């Protein structure tokens, strides 16, 4: 980022005795060769010389911090004056947006003045990218904190996971200690588990067909999968309702909900797995085939293991997608106040359904239960993500990543300056 000017204006480095490899061997060679050969004159005795402090040109120094802080303060003051004092605008959001825009502009101007224009452009892009990432992270943190803040003060941990809402009485002030959402936790876990166990192998098989097997049906299947992934989730629910429940093939039950969830899970997982399989280098397939492996072996032992972490991510995204789906459950699981651990018969509760129905009532207690359900739902997703990341890690500790020593060697090479000797 900062160029040679930075290097020269860098603070003077520590005094280093002449032990650098190149000069050391050079002078010793001269000492040995000089007197006997009588050729070149003796090298001057090695003198300590000043090496510049090793630095990474891309380091973020104090100048940069000061520049950013200056730009932030200046833009704050400027926008405050213009926004609230001169134009009498109002609203925090508008103020923040204006502040940010002016901050970016001032960062460019300031950096261009102090360093140079190209560096300024680079800084501005860095600021925009980093702030976009920060915005994402802070949004997620905000949502999680908000739900936790609303849920945790009223939680009765003893009953939350163990009791259902069979004896729910809205007027009882201590009702939260007597009911829980166990029926919804069990329902959601069962429905999602069945949908995953049935849907994921189907999705992976479809992706393998699309990318590895090929043939005539590929175009048709890909079109259908794409169309399916565009289906609104409530349509999946209505589909199961009209085909299976309305025709009295099955009744409202967890399994009906699972079927609706599969309709949503299947296309999303298929598409991501297909993309992941496409990244696996063709050379690996050829290597496997050339070893005499049949195609199914190649897919099973080479392609899928190579794409393992990507496939796990795809499955995770699929589960995360369906675990919070509400619409497909409305006419399939139907919801229930009482515990029903049997996924195959009778109405079953689910966390999204509880949130949906409870948040719509005027009761504060209902709202608290809804937030607790939301909190549990997020926790389930979090646990899933952590577990999957843990299991998808590739075996073998060293996976070709450069070690820290390698990185040190690559970046912290002292740059010898030859001019020092001559002057």
């Amino acid at each position, binding site marked *: 980022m900062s160029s040679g000017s930075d290097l020269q204006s860098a603070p003077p480095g520590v005094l280093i005795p002449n032990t650098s490899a190149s000069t050391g061997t050079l002078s010793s060679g001269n000492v040995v060769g000089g007197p006997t050969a009588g050729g070149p004159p003796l090298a001057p005795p090695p003198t300590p010389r000043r090496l510049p402090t090793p630095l990474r040109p891309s380091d973020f120094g104090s100048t940069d911090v000061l520049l950013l802080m200056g730009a932030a303060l200046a833009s704050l003051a400027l926008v405050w004056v213009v926004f609230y004092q001169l134009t009498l605008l109002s609203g925090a959001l508008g103020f923040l947006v204006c502040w940010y825009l002016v901050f970016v502009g001032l960062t460019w101007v300031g950096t261009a003045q102090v360093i140079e224009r190209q560096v300024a452009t680079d800084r501005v892009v860095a600021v925009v990218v980093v702030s976009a990432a920060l915005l994402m992270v802070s949004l997620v943190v905000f949502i999680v904190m908000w739900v936790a803040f609303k849920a945790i003060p009223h939680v009765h941990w003893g009953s939350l996971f163990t009791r259902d809402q069979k004896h729910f009485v809205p007027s009882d002030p201590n009702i939260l200690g007597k009911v829980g959402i166990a029926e919804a936790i069990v329902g959601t876990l069962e429905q999602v588990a069945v949908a995953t166990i049935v849907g994921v192998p189907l999705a992976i098989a479809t992706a393998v067909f699309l990318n590895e097997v090929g043939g005539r049906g590929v175009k048709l299947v890909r079109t259908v999968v794409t169309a399916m992934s565009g289906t609104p989730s409530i349509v999946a629910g209505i589909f199961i309702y009209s085909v299976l429940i309305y025709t009295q093939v099955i009744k409202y039950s967890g399994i009906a909900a699972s079927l609706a969830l599969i309709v949503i899970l299947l296309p999303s997982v298929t598409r991501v797995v297909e993309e992941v399989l496409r990244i696996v280098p063709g050379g690996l397939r050829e*290597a496997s085939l050339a070893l005499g492996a049949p195609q199914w072996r190649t897919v099973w032992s080479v392609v899928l293991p190579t794409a393992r972490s990507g496939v796990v991510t795809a499955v995770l995204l699929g589960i995360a997608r369906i675990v919070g789906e509400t619409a497909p459950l409305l006419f399939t699981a139907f919801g229930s106040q009482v515990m029903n651990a049997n996924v195959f018969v009778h109405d079953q509760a689910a966390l999204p359904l509880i949130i949906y129905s409870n948040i719509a009532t005027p009761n504060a207690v209902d709202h608290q239960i809804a937030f607790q359900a939301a909190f549990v739902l997020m926790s389930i997703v979090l646990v899933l993500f952590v577990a999957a990341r843990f299991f998808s890690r590739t075996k073998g500790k060293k*996976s070709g990543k450069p070690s820290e020593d390698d990185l040190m060697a690559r970046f912290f090479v002292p740059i010898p300056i030859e001019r020092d000797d001559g002057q």
Partner: protein
Amino acid sequence: MTTYMTATSGAPASNIARGTSPLGGAGEIDADGVCAWFSGRLVLELVTLRMEKSKVTALIGPSGCGKSTFLRILNRMHEVIPGAQLAGSVALDGLDIYGAGQRAVDTRRHIGMVFQKPNPFPAMTIAENVLSGLRFSRISPASRGDLVEEMLTKAGLWNEVKDRLGELGGALSGGQQQRLCIARALAVRPRVLLMDEPCSALDPTSTRRIERTIKDIADEVTVVIVTHNMQQAQRVSDYCAFFLAEENKPGRVVESGTTDMMFAEPTDQRTADYVNGRFG
């Protein structure tokens, strides 16, 4: 180079006990009237070539003359490419590999292949990579450890990796990866080993190491190697075949014979021009 040649040719051949392949030892390939098409375009015309048992045959020629296509026809990897067609016959020890009832999978077990770009399986450890071919064929060797050591020694990699067999194959350098691929191909005890420019992505040291490996394994397995490097062909091969595709014409074999003859006194002027670096 000359010193290196004398140094290795004087050294004893691999002292490892010869593998007990169910069909035994090196094989001989006879290609007869082989033609190849890609999407209806003829790229290789009537190639008839014999690859002698326990010898190294080099296929040389400029780019795009069908050497690699021919090589892939020899173990039925050609048919993996969509739109690829072929004609003619290829016989391994007298048995037509394209004959009725012959399965590509069996052919490839006997005729192994090493590719231009090193392609160890990244999800497997070094040891698993060596054993992968056996695993695919559902053969369990008597002693896995011994087999891994034997194959890695043959490929000249054992000393470098013997303490890190549990690491992933991708952790090796390019030259080591290529030798791992050779060990992997040798582990199924093929009768013929096809090598498609195995050194083109490697540095001179690794290249030399692999050339030594080729010489070491040649008595146990017939080697067919595609190379762009004349010196390499001269160093490693016993026989040579010169492929050439003239403008807008499919590739053909211009001349073939012993390497000494091909380089010293080629009968065809085009061969002489090519091996002396006047084109290509």
